[in-house]
């Protein structure tokens, strides 16, 4: 996984509530057996008409998200299906950071596994950022509103004096800062897992999970 320490990028705005993963990556693109190449299908049914031509009515139809790497959006982003393809599509499209008042749990997890940092900010902060981006004008590829996200310092700032701090789970922060492969990390716990299995875990699929009894009696 590509580490993420400090990231400066253009902000793309999607001012909608409850954007579900069916919208982020529609089901017709879930049949691939690779992890790569999903960016072209991001928000496909919104970005494109049924015949594959671009939909200029969509918020990004004027190119406002071109070259963006920070997504600013509404509450409960990523709800619905567990499809990690949603995180793959956002990452492949170029997003490294997502800012929203809240996220759905599974999507939130999936982001961290793919080097994408989801940050939950107070709603007032998000509203303030929405206003600032709108005031800055959408612009094309090389213009628009930029932010810097510093994961080490846990702050977000811009050139005009804005500075907000944010919370992040320390373990996830470390994994992202160092680009750690968490399976490798877990395998370092092999002794503990083996010990646990010996004592408690089912030896066969139909066996009871014996630890239940120990703790509940």
């Amino acid at each position: 996984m590509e580490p993420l320490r400090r990231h400066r990028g253009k902000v793309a705005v999607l001012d909608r509530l409850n954007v579900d993963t069916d919208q982020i990556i529609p089901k017709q693109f879930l049949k691939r057996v690779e992890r790569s190449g999903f960016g072209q299908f991001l928000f496909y049914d919104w970005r494109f008409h049924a015949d594959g031509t671009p939909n200029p009515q969509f918020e990004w139809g004027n190119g406002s998200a071109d070259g963006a790497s920070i997504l600013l959006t509404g509450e409960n982003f990523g709800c619905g299906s567990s499809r990690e393809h949603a995180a793959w599509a956002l990452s492949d499209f170029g997003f490294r950071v997502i800012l929203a008042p809240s996220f759905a749990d599974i999507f939130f997890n999936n982001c961290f596994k793919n080097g994408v940092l989801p940050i939950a900010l107070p709603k007032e902060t998000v509203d303030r950022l929405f206003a600032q981006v709108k005031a800055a004008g959408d612009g094309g590829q090389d213009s628009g509103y930029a932010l810097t996200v510093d994961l080490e310092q846990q702050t977000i700032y811009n050139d005009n004096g804005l500075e907000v701090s944010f919370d992040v789970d320390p373990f996830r922060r470390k994994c992202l800062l160092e680009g750690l492969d968490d399976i490798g990390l877990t395998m370092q716990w092999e002794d503990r897992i083996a010990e646990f299995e010996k004592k408690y875990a089912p030896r066969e699929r139909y066996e009871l999970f014996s630890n239940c009894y120990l703790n509940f009696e």
Partner: protein
Amino acid sequence: MLQKTGPKTLVEKIWEAHQVASEEGKPDLLYIDLHLVHEVTSPQAFEGLRLAGRKVRRPDLTYATMDHNVPTDNPFVVNDPIAAKQIAVLEENCKEFAIDLADLNSSAQGIVHVIGPELGLTQPGKTIVCGDSHTSTHGAFGALAFGIGTSEVEHVLATQCLWQSKPKTMQVNIVGERPHSVSAKDIVLGVIAANGIGFGTGHVIEFTGDVIRSMTMEERMTVCNMSIEAGARAGLVAPDETTFAYLEGRRFVPSGDAFEFAKEKWRTLRTDEGATYDKEIVFDVTAMKEQVTWGTNPGMGTDVDGRVPYPEEMESESARRATASAIAYMGLEPGMRIQDIEIQHVFIGSCTNARIEDLRMAASIVRGRTVKPGVRALVVPGSKQVKLQAEAEGLDEVFKSAGFEWREPGCSMCLGMNPDIVPEGERCASTSNRNFEGRQGRGARTHLVSPAMAAAAAIAGRFVSAKAMLEESIVS
């Protein structure tokens, strides 16, 4: 190990019994008892294992089937080459890593969340994961069951563990006198409509109360299945005699003395007197009616005799916009009567509502009636076992003679990854779980309902009360 002292909730008990490691300021390393695998969210995980030269740690605690892509007219003819490849890749992966697979030839094949309970793989007190958000279904048995992404699928395959931060707990207490016409689906849709589709975020919901206690296992599965539609990490119900009666005699459930022993232990799986939840909600079903969703998320629903709302009734600017946009997508008018909405498709199926009781309920409405001309109606049983059982009871004939199509098991039109799709601009009464834009096909309009309500809609060609139809007060 960091563990709570004093009275504990059911979730806390299961959680603490599975902690492999627990340190301050870190998520816990949690042991997984059962890992269910399907064709759509697993290929990249197996590929990851191969690239790193890793093995599946516990193939014996892993069980696979194919459901999402499977055609339901003839499962063996997969015309979509990419879907066919995904199915073939699952077969190869299961062979290579020695994982049991209920393939298309197996009498156990079906929707992963239908077959887990059916085979008795799903048991009280277990931790269960699957690369599918509706894994919450298994919580009906008092298991802690949750959906995960593909990276986590790979992680569980390699280590049989997951790093998870301890969830917050929530009690959803379902109380009151349940009207006979109100199904489990109506109740869970009602809970979500009343509290919003994000109210469960970060929490595991324990459903409690007399209404839950008197529900069958099938009904509890419907309720727990939809807890993800409230944003919850999982939903569960403490096991009781109903649970044990369902489990007894199933393939992977211990038998004889071992079963008696298991029951004794399972009985301890309940929230202690005096334990507290982080959040508590009470929902009274006494005045409930059958539900129909009008919008593009499962919380946008109302009574069958209700109306489509006016956006200006909503509290915030963003909610007003979301409502207006949903009504526009759905091709409805604000203030329109739900009963005036005409449908062209009916789908009875999915991990929410394709079990034998669901089909019996739908058949009881359909019996002796005919599908409205111009309506295409599908019944897709949740598994081979459900299909065989339904056929033994003659339900297939009830459906077929009324004009329904009787299909082979799979996820089908719930998400349209197979050829079962609703065309653009057309409308479907669906017993599935999500009415998101494009869920059943690009531009398709989905209304979530119970099996009885879907059956009634097939007959009437519009939404009507199934109860009223049974009382024959509605002439179709």
